[in-house]
């Protein structure tokens, strides 16, 4: 007649504990409340912990990561490049399906910040990059995106805007993920 009442309901063996939403956050930052699913938040928490513990790669700095919705980074192309000594701010927006779904990444424009002039960067900051679209993988991370964009800038041969920049900027949505970019240029 043992009526065992576990403290928490038990599930399958290896997912035995379903605790309430995590009370032990790896980051003790006083982040503002943000609504997210536990998966993305845990993943982002992990990434954030990694960033805090291991630091960012050279040229990449974390500007703001108060919540699990929007993060800001700055990237700077190191070494000899067209964009030498230029610092650009990247904005990452995460949804509940991160990392399954890709984050919305764009350059921050305004308030003294501008988007780099690049054949794949529109003047409103939207970026046409395959890894942000159809080539996104959950394996990638925020840092990985930053590094990729850093290398994209570094490998640019010519500073020129995209050919359909004006048209796109006029009709572009707020979220670059809504844009069906056509990835045709692999050289840049």
């Amino acid at each position, binding site marked *: 007649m*043992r009526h065992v009442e576990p403290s928490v309901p038990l599930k399958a063996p290896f997912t035995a*504990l379903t605790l309430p939403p995590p009370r032990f956050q790896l980051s003790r930052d006083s982040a503002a409340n943000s609504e997210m699913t536990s998966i993305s938040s845990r993943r982002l928490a992990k990434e954030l912990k990694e960033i805090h513990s291991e630091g960012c790669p050279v040229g990449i700095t974390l500007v703001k990561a108060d919540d699990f919705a929007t993060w800001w980074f700055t990237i700077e192309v190191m070494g000899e490049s067209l964009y030498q000594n230029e610092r650009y701010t990247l904005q990452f927006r995460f949804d509940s399906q991160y990392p399954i779904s890709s984050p919305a990444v764009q350059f921050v424009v305004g308030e003294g910040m501008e988007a780099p002039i690049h054949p794949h960067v529109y003047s409103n900051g939207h970026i046409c990059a395959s890894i942000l679209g159809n080539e996104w993988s959950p394996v990638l991370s925020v840092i990985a995106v930053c590094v990729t964009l850093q290398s994209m800038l570094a490998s640019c041969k010519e500073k020129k805007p995209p050919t359909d920049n004006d048209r796109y900027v006029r009709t572009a949505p707020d979220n670059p993920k809504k844009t069906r970019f056509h990835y045709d240029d692999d050289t840049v």
Partner: protein
Amino acid sequence: MLLYNYVDTPNNNLVCCICRAPFTDPVTTTTCQHTFCRDCITRALTHSSQCPVDRSPLALNDLGPVNPIVRSLVDELTVECVYREEGCRHRVQRQLLAAHLKDECEFSEAGSVRNELCKLKEKEMSEGCAVHPESSETIPPSEMSEEPVPKDPLGNEDETSATASGSGAIPSSSRGVSRLTEQNIILRHRVDTLEGAVQILRKEMLMVRTVLSPWIQNCAASGQPSTSGAGSRIPASEVDAGAASNFTSPAAERDYRPHTNNTTPGVNSPDDSVTRGSQVGSSNDERRSRSEDRPVDRNDLASYFPADDEVRVRRTATSSIPEYSQTQRQPRPPGVGHLHHHSVPSVPGMNPGDIHPTMSPMGLGGGYFGHPLTSPYGAMGMYGAILSPPTGPQHQPQAGDFTIPDLNTSTPSISTTLEGLQSTVEVLAAAMGELNKKGDVALALMGGGTGGALPGGGVVGEVLRLGEEVMGVRATVQGLRMQMHALMMGNVGVGVGAAGNGMGMGFSGGRPPQSANGSEGGNTEGYGLPSPMTQGLQNQRMFYPVAPGITKL
């Protein structure tokens, strides 16, 4: 997906690239040998059907089990207890954390309450109360679920405040709860033992029931031992018709139907009872002989019995009992006269065939007592048949019919059934005594002869007497004949052989009348029929060797 605090940084190879945590329920792609958490890769495949690592085409079917080594490595990673904030410093393998939280951790909500209970228990044990060790398990989970869950994933302050408030409230409520749970458990144990005892009792009752099933049915059906229900077709010759109606049991009783007594309160026609009894008897003879008795007339038999409450009730209920007893014990004449009245017209109707219809109920009666009794009872039956006017199977039971009704399960209780048995035996004994007396009377009747038919002489006596008379008449006739012959031949003379014979015969014939007369008159022997005949014959025979003219005597 879970959140463990891994004590050591896990090996990078054991980390899922999607959730960046050590694998939980890992699976490996069969196509490209990449390992992910099952949940992670399942969700990823809903987005795009390619492997997250190398973007090779991938489907859910391509997920297979991981190498067991990987699984073991992952399960044995050391993690901290999730209640580290509350103070638990326990570290355990990831696979053992659940057990720790369930049983050991004292800092979880359940654990803290458990602690309180343990302290209470120790107090009570020291006070001598019996405390059940399992009471701690019955902590209502609502207590734990009610603990506020902070929405803020980063809000440690909220969490600690919540736990503090929760722990403060726990001791006071848990004490009452613990007491109730202990009582609950004690009561549960008692209930279990009682249920076990009930089971045993039920089985025993079942066995008893099966053994006593007939009587139990009756008890259920009738409830009260029916007084008028019992009846017997006891020698109704001694019983008035009214009494007989009281005595005759409802025929349904004889059937094996439990709903007998109350439904038919004992006022069935004797004919019905007889016929039904015969029917039932023929069909259920076996059963009856085996285990049951006929519900003998408890009303009248009650008088023979030591006082029983039921019996008394029955006695008072029926007024026929004293009548019956009186008729039973009264001197012969009334019953005899009764019989006589019946017997006279029955003689011409008597034939061996008539015995059988009456025998059948007798047979029943004999049968129910078992086979050894059949024959004597059958004999009685025969007597009864002779005495009674057998008009077929449906003859009046009053004419010495000894059919004792069957005992069937309609009798309400075993005691009444046994009483019925005993009463039946007594009735039979009385009936036998009666018959013996009747037989004596019959013999006496026959011995009485010309003295007139003594009442109660019986048919047998009558017959014998009549036969005797016939013989006497015949002898007289012969004597007369011979006298005539002698007279006629006397003139002819002596020596005529045949005539002499005839004369001798005639002479002798003269004698026989005398002898016959003498025999008739002088026969004082009891059973006279043979003797006058033999005397006459002797007289006649004696004349042959004697020469004519010489008379002997």
